[in-house]
């Protein structure tokens, strides 16, 4: 399998008045055209890892790495222009909540075409056709109608489908999904995941799926990385999740209430300082 993305010893830190906060402290992994899950609690650095790859880390943060390489391009030393060309075209990102991440004053169709026109020379008419095709691909029933709607006029599930459409319209090679379904209803979650799964498989993209839900991630991805306090504590294939060795991974798995298991009180996650070393 060809390697799409190489991350070696990635560190992200934020200087504050009370000293540096190290959000990501030496994360390394490689990604081919496969589905990789990154799991952890809030503050474990999982989102910052995704953002650093995408180039969305705030300007005052410090990013260092031995290697941060996307298909031969050194992301750390890429010019802003180069990064802009990559972003949206070859690397795309789906954010958590469509309510906040779609432009509220632009119709859905225009937003999708905007993405297209940023990266390709397409006329409005061609763009419209591609946007409509894409909306259909994410199983929106009446694309013509949705094309002219504003984001506040659609439901959360539909908003998230629109975001997926917008992110995939340029045919990216790497997709980063940061909690793509956390803001959605349980019944809608599965629909959206199903669509995402199908499109990722059809188009042979690499996918990084960031979430705090270990069970969900493991059912969706080939491989899972578990993060704690900015470091990777365990990396394992999803199929072997039951035999996870690290107590933190086991804790994450066990703390979820399950139907048909009578565990009172629920096992609570232990956190040990030495795991963060």
């Amino acid at each position, binding site marked *: 399998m060809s390697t799409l993305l190489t991350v070696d010893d990635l560190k992200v830190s934020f200087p504050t008045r009370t000293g540096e906060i190290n959000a990501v402290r030496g994360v390394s992994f490689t990604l081919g055209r496969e589905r990789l899950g990154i799991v952890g609690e*809030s503050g474990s650095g999982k989102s910052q890892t995704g953002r650093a790859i995408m180039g969305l880390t705030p300007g005052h943060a410090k990013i260092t790495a031995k290697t941060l390489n996307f298909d031969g391009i050194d992301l750390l030393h890429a010019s802003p222009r180069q990064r802009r060309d990559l972003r949206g075209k070859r690397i795309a990102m789906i954010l958590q909540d469509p309510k906040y991440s779609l432009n509220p004053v632009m119709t859905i169709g225009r937003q999708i075409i905007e993405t297209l026109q940023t990266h390709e020379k397409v006329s409005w008419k061609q763009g419209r056709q591609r946007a409509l095709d894409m909306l259909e691909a994410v199983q929106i029933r009446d694309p013509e109608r949705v094309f002219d709607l504003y984001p506040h006029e659609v439901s959360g599930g539909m908003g998230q489908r629109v975001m997926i459409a917008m992110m995939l319209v340029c045919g990216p090679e790497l997709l980063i999904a940061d909690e793509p379904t956390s803001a959605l209803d349980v019944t809608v979650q599965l629909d959206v995941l199903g669509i995402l799964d199908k499109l990722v498989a059809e188009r042979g993209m690499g996918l990084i799926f960031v979430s*705090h839900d270990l069970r969900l991630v493991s059912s969706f991805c080939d491989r899972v990385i578990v993060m704690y306090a900015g470091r990777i504590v365990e990396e394992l294939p999803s199929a072997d999740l039951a035999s996870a060795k690290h107590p933190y991974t086991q804790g994450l798995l066990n703390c979820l209430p399950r139907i048909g298991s009578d565990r009172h009180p629920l096992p609570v996650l232990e956190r040990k300082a030495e795991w963060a070393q």
Partner: protein
Amino acid sequence: MTATALSVSDMVVTFDEFVALNHVSLDVREGESFGIVGESGSGKSTLLRAVAGLNVFESGRLTVAGRSYSGAKRDRDFYRTVQMVFQDPYGSLHPRQTVDRLLLEPLAIHGFTDVDVRIARALDEVGLGSGFRFRYSHQLSGGQRQRIAIARALILEPKILLLDEPTSALDASIQAEILNLLEQARRERGLTFVMVSHDLGVISHMCDRLAVMRKGEVVETFAADALEKREFSADYTRQLLVASEGFRRG
């Protein structure tokens, strides 16, 4: 037979033209933990809010501890009996009040005098300790905030606790801690819970019986063990159950 703690019959709530609750009836027994599941817009939160007097209900009856209520007017006694914990701990605590001030408010309203002792005890009970007493909510994590919200609800020693998605804004690991805390409080004080959630796993863990709601109506009501044995009839319940089991390819 145990007494009924809270009874709702034929409750209707409308917002202009939209019917949010369409003749909903529920009976919650004393000491019971009762769950309500459904997707957004099913009316589950509206039901809790109508019980708590945060929404007006047009018709129907609400009986709490033997007394009837209508509209949105609730007297002080009602809030000594019924307290509510909200979904989002980032929104439900006053940002400019310290924890001490937040916990003092219900005590002052209800004319308690031994406030110091009660605040210290309430903080202890939710596992925070008095070190948190003079902090602002922005200095706390999400889980700690939800603990404060629970302390605020418990400080008046209510009989019934209304829980509106108390853990859905929290991480899975923090969720376990909060659920354990709630169970412990229920056991120690013999509380009655009415808990709303979209997560069937959480409801089946916490509750004895549950109601499934959809589009402002109760689809069905059954005991929580029936979930495991699949002894329910509505197709919608099956959909929710499948959704709670996670993603499956194919």
